[in-house]
């Protein structure tokens, strides 16, 4: 067990930092520290161009295998890349769903044709993706999706009808991966398919959801006889759940280090405000800041454990990975409360009318979504208890 990186990895760190310093300039300078969670609506066009800038330098998809056009970085190098990216204040990635979720899924489960059709646009930063999972009746109970996909043999296309909700970046995206029911008589995990759907068609309607922040990162997406080609289903009809769950495995890992660097930037801002207004003398605030600092520090080492550890032979998650979502989301929510508390009554005052929030106000409000999306804290606790501690499931209600 040791913490230091090799000399070669340290050289890689310098290379990343130098590239970012040289390129996060000009029209991209205004993007520094922008576009993160709670701020995803900012500068969409410039951030899309930033994706292409990254691609030119070979800095998209750093963890993908070289055979599929990625940089083939080791785990250590990926850690370093995400840390330096966040340290430089480089903007929230509009391409992260394609790079982190859609791409790895297509690499793992897709056909050579799908890989040829979809991976280049992700690699070169020109095509953005969104995730079509949740529905009004399928939140925590994700397997309850009602969206249907019917194969039209005459057109040789899949026809999709239904509604998705909480779809991040749908309004900016070129494609959506959708789980939909291929067997209309099925229930639960069975009878689902995993589809790659073009968003630019008459059958797809995106409506923004106005959130408690007054901004709209999330959307509703309506599919009304939307279509995709026969070759745009990943796996067989009925395999959708397996593909979707395989994808969840890609969500954990190295990108968490970058997320933590963003958290560090937020905590630094909280400390700056407390020192400026004198609340850093308040013994209770001092305890809360120290606790936030300690736990963020531990969070980093928890991630390094996740990355260094082997998962079980069945692909099951180690304890430190199983608790990770509950840990960071609860931590971040507490930071949001601390952020507004260090401001005192001044913390009420908006940046501007009608409802332009300060950075810390935005943090205070937006973190409330963290403990809900991607498996709410209650669901996380069920998963930890049932999978991690082998406690029995609730009896069925009906």
């Amino acid at each position, binding site marked *: 067990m040791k*913490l230091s990186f*090799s000399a070669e990895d340290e050289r890689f760190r310098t290379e990343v930092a130098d590239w970012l310093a040289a390129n996060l300039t000009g029209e991209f300078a205004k993007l520094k520290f922008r576009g993160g969670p709670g701020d995803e609506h900012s500068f969409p066009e410039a951030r899309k161009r930033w994706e292409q800038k990254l691609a030119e330098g070979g800095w998209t998809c750093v963890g993908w295998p070289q055979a599929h056009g990625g940089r083939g970085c080791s785990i250590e190098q990926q850690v370093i890349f995400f840390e330096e990216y966040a340290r430089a204040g480089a903007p929230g990635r509009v391409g992260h769903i394609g790079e982190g979720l859609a791409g790895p899924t297509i690499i793992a489960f897709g056909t050579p044709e799908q890989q040829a059709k979809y991976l280049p646009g992700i690699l070169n930063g020109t095509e953005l993706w969104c995730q079509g999972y949740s529905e009004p009746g399928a939140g925590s109970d994700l397997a309850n999706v009602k969206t249907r996909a019917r194969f039209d043999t005459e057109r040789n296309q899949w026809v999709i009808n239904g509604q998705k909700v909480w779809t991040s970046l749908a309004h900016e995206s070129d494609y959506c991966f959708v789980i939909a029911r291929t067997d209309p008589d099925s229930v639960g995990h069975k009878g689902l398919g995993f589809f790659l759907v073009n968003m630019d068609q008459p059958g797809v309607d995106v409506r923004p959801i106005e959130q408690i922040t007054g901004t709209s990162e999330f959307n509703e997406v309506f599919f009304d006889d939307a279509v995709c080609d026969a070759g745009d289903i990943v796996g067989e009809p009925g395999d959708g759940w397996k593909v979707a769950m395989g994808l969840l495995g890609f969500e954990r890992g190295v990108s968490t280090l970058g997320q933590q660097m963003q958290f560090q930037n937020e905590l630094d801002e909280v400390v700056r405000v407390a020192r400026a207004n004198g609340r850093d003398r308040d013994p209770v605030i001092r*305890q809360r800041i120290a606790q936030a600092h300690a736990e963020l520090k531990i969070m980093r080492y928890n991630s390094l454990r996740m990355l*260094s550890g082997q998962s079980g032979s069945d692909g099951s998650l180690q*304890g430190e990975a199983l*608790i990770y979502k509950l840990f960071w989301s609860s931590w971040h929510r507490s930071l949001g409360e601390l952020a507004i508390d260090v401001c005192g009554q001044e913390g009420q005052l908006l940046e501007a009318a009608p409802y332009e929030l300060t950075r810390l106000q935005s943090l205070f409000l937006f973190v409330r979504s963290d403990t809900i999306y991607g498996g709410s804290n209650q669901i996380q*606790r069920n998963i930890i208890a049932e999978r991690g*501690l082998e*406690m029995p499931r609730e009896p069925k209600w009906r």
Partner: protein
Amino acid sequence: MEFRFTEEQQMIRETAAGFFADCSTSAAVRAAMVTERGYDLSLWRQICDDLYLHAITLPETIGGMGLGYVELIAVMEQMGRYLVCAPYFATVCQAVPALQLADAASVSGPWLERILGGETAALAWIGQERPGCEAVTATCEVVEGGFLLSGDYRLVVDGHSADILVLAARQAGTEGREGISLFVVDAAAEGIRRQWTPALDQTRHLGRVEVDSLLLPAEACLGSCGEAGTVLEQVLQLATVALAAEQMGVAQQVQDLAVQYTREREQFNRPIASFQAIKHKAADMMLRTEVARSACYYAACIADEAWQGGAMAAELPEAAAVAKSYCSDACFSNAGEALQMHGGVGFTWEYDVHLYFKRAKASELMLGTASEHRETLAKLLLDGGANA
């Protein structure tokens, strides 16, 4: 960057776990804890002679294993899990680093060799309960042929039974880490009064050590007279890391006990573990245990750097405070929840939960509470240094 145990470290951990599971049973702990010594001498002999766990950090030059804090915390976790009654924490986690860090091998070597041979040791520094070095109130005076030592040491872990004592004292009129010296003496020396001070946590015994104008030869002083404050502080930080690992082991064990109990206990015609009210408590316990584990692994790596003079050694004060603040809260919360989940039997003497519950509180209060360690972090973060 490699953030998991090597095979060798894993083997040490599993060997310790297997041995303690067999030998530190509930019955064994309960038998040992009511004796004045507080541990079974034959168990200690086995830990030393058969498992060689006492030699983990002892230098190879005298026949020790020459390993570091990653190995040590692997053992300490298991000590916590099985509430092992043994003078291990006092000897290996407190006295050994004091002897090794305070002076050259030529001076401390003979004492370390006695420890290698199975003798036990304790570190006494608390005169009045205050953070770190500030607790030292015993005084030393330079006299013809050596030193005169006077002090009333309290809360000395295994101090009443140890074979060797390391005593901290300060020159009159000094404060903080200034003017502190460390002395090593044979505990049987004339003029040392010792007694057992029974405590809430019966599984770790505390003693009181009194000396009044005790004459010590010049060679009893470790390092330069009056300059051991920084070393004592570092020793306490290393001990704090080890204690945090023990707390993590306790947190893990009470979690396991509670989960096992709730899976077996049936009410309303179902195991109570199937109720979300129970499962969510257990999930929170697991979160705290795993986070505590990450904190300990991090702190152990930093302690290793401090122990072996690595580049990140300067992070020790922060790492110790991070680990002890988190593990103290995690350990006591888990113990409290475990007691609650056991229902009525959790409140009985018969079930072991109360032993862990008491250990959890005792460890939380020892070597700085969670809030004291958070204040240390606050000083580092907000005031530009731990001593500002």
